[in-house]
Structures are given as C-alpha cells and as structure tokens.
C-alpha cells in the first residue's frame, strides 16, 4: 500500500530580514525506491519551487545533501524513505552557516578547519615534476586511500555532542584529515608537529568518545579506531614533551 508521507521542512532565509524560521509541511505519496533526494526534488518541482536544498552527485560522493533527518544527520541521497516513519522532519545541519532552508555552508567550516589544522601534504623538498614518483607500499597507499574517502559532508560534526557544545572542537573530520597525513610517507611532519595541531582540548583531548560520528558517518569510516590511535600517539607525545624540543607552552 502506498504511504502518504508528511515532510516538515525548516524554512528560513537569513538574508531576508522578514523571514521567520518555521516548519512547513509538504505531503507526498511514497514511491518505490524513493530517497529523500527524490522526495525533495518532487517537492520543489510539484509543490514549492522555493525550497532550498543542496545536491550534486545523488550518490553519496559529494556530501552536499547532509541534513538532520528526524534529528539525526544523514545524506538525503542515500536515505530511503522506506526506512523512515511517515512523518519526516528535515532540518539543516547544525553547526554550519545557514544559507537557506536545508542548505548550509559546510565549505566555509571545512576551510577554516583545514587551515587551522594545516590539513595538507607537507613535503620536505620541492617536488620534481619530471622525476618518477616515489613508490609507496601498497598497503600503506590503501590505508591512506581509505581515509581519503571522507567527503566532508559534516555529518560527524553535526552528530558530535562535543562539537555542538564547543564550536572550536575540530570534530572527527579534522582528526581523520590529520590521521591521513600522518599515515602518508610523503608527509615530512612527525608526531611532534601533529601534537602542536591536535594535542589540546579543541583537538583529540577534547573528544569525549560519544561516537555519534562513528554511528552516522555515511562513508562508514573507522572514526573511533582512528581517533583512539591518534589519542595514544598524542598522549605519548604529550608525556614525552615536558621540556622537549617544542617547548612547554606554559
């Protein structure tokens, strides 16, 4: 039997001074294999062309369509309406700047995080573009690639109770970025350098292991494992650090 779905969608445009945040209800008949992305597209095409939401790939690759689905972060494109009750509440991802309705600016947050954590490859010598690339152990390359699967959708930040209370917390996405460069043999940084970026209460020691990130990550990344590894590495570094090379900092 076809279900009738009620969507309560947050409507608000912060750039419009007259806009008041409100939930607006849209009613749709469920179709077979319907995802939230399909439902939202139909709402926009058939019921209200003004509803804002983001999408690009429709296949859980771009990470644009993350939103709160009945209170939990998830990607609209890979959430089947069949897995949800008939009453579905959609809110924008918390913790990110609201563009309008369900559309948030995760890009700005990710950029600030990346710049703060220096989340890019630090090579010791200039890269010679004419030379053959240095070989990498296949297992190592695989491990780096596994962490590179992060699509920066922001679900882990929205699912993190710590990040919700403390906006400066780097979140699982920040930690997994550095875990990725820590694994990369081309990166010249050592644990002392990573400690300077992650070794405080806004970094790995702020993580309270609530594991919302692990349980909602649409790419099923092993965030818990990565954070535990980092915590050990940074704790070891922190203990060894008293009066060591990087100074005490107090």
């Amino acid at each position, binding site marked *: 039997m076809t279900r009738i779905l009620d969507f309560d969608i947050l409507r608000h445009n912060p750039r419009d001074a007259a806009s008041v945040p409100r939930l607006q209800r849209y009613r749709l008949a469920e179709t077979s294999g319907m995802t939230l992305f399909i439902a939202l597209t139909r709402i926009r095409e058939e019921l209200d062309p003004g509803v804002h939401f983001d999408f690009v790939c429709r296949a859980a690759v771009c990470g644009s369509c993350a939103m709160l689905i009945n209170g939990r972060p998830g990607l609209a494109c890979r959430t089947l309406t069949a897995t949800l009750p008939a009453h579905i509440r959609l809110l924008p991802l918390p913790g990110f700047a609201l563009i309008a309705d369900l559309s948030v600016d995760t890009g700005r947050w990710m950029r600030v995080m990346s710049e703060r954590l220096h989340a890019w490859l630090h090579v010791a010598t200039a890269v010679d573009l004419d030379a053959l690339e240095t070989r990498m152990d296949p297992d190592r390359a695989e491990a780096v690639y596994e962490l590179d699967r992060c699509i920066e959708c922001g679900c882990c930040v929205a*699912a993190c109770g710590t990040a919700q*209370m403390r906006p400066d917390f780097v979140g699982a996405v920040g930690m997994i970025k550095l875990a990725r460069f820590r694994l990369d043999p081309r990166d010249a940084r050592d644990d002392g350098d990573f400690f300077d*970026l992650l070794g405080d209460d806004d970094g790995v*020691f702020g993580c309270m292991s609530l594991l*919302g990130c692990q349980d909602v990550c649409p790419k099923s990344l092993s965030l818990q494992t990565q954070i535990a590894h980092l915590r*050990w590495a940074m*704790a070891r570094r922190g203990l060894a650090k008293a009066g060591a090379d990087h100074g005490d*900092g107090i």
Partner: protein
Amino acid sequence: MPAPVSPGPWPARLDLLQSATGLFLALFMWLHMLFVASILFGTDAMWRVARFFEGYYLFGRSLPWLVSLFVAVVFVLFAVHAGLALRKFPSHWRQHAAYWRHMRGMRHGDTTSWLAQVVTGFGVFFLAPVHLYLMLTHPELIGPYESADRVWSGRMWPLYLLLLLLVEIHAGVGLYRLAVKWLAVGDKARMRLMRLKWGFTVFFIALGLLTLAAYVRLGIEHAPHAGEPYLPTWQRTLS
C-alpha cells in the same frame, strides 16, 4: 598561514590523568562491592575481610590506620578525578541547551549515556565524601555489627542506596567509555562491550541491593545493642 603554537604537555597529561583516576576508582568500586558483599557469606566472613584490610593476618593485630591511609589516597584520587571531569561539564546555558537538543534528536545510546555520566558523577560528588569522611575518621567501625549499626541505627542506608545506584551507573558507563576512548574497537566488539557493561552494572546493582538488605536486616536485629562491636563466633566460645 600562522605556524601552530604548541599547546604544551598539560592537555595530554590531564586527559590521561582523568582516564587513569577513573579506571582506578571504577575498578576499586567493583572490588569494594565484592568485599562488602562478604556479609552474604555470614558475619564471620565479613569480619575476616575487614580484619584482613587492617593487616590483622599480616601483623597479628589490627591496624585501622592502614584503612584510613588507603581511604585518604582514594579521597585524593576522587577529588582529582572530579576536578578533571568538571572540565567536561557544560557551563554556559547555551551549551546545556545545545546538548539537550542534540541528545533528544540523536536518540543515540552513547550520547545519552554521557549525560547520565554527568548527572551521576555530580551526585557522587556530593554523596561519596560523607562516606569517605566517616571511613577516614572511624576506620575501626568496619565490621558486621559496626557497619550494620551505621547503615540502620546511623541512618546511612538512604545515602548508601542512592550512592550504590549512582556509582554503579557512573562506573559502568565510565569503563565502557574508557575502552572506546583508548582502544581501537570495531563495531562488533563495541556491541559486545556495551552488553558487558550492562551485565556488570546489573550484576553489581543486584549484589549491592542484596548486600544492603543484609546489613539493614542485621542492623534492625542489632539495634537494641547498637554500638557494641562484633566478636567472631570462635572468640565468643573461647571466652
């Protein structure tokens, strides 16, 4: 891009210290429960356990100050743990509101259990010092009648009942969180850990309730002679 400024070793040290004190206190609470539960094996058994920790079987006489010394160590670790855990409490109203809203939306066990840890920890913070101070200043009053009189005639049973529930929930969740914080566990191992945590919590609460009931019963029986110390049966037949 500004060069990163080292945070120094303290955030790492404090995080480790919070985990280490928590691990010690939680394991100690479990052992403590087992020792106290010796009353279920009879008054003589409990008397032997109490004397054992006073060094009776090592030095040939009871040295209650050994208990005081250990209580003092526990008290200090407890205070250190509480102080470190306070750093994690939400302080601003905005943080409280954010966590509640988040928790209600997420409907996620580990997120909800963190609030339980905060609330139970806060409760233990107030109730445990009452018991700790008594043990620190009157270590000799640990024994079948002595403890039972404290529980019943000393009207400590409501405090112990509440403390039992708070401590067991706090310690169970805390040990589980220590495991997922420091060990790389897969999803399956995490499910097993969660079940194990519930198993331990239920076991220790059940054991605690039985034990407390035993002391209450003994306390009611002994109320007319409250304050008289316990003599093991063999010493009674000798005298």
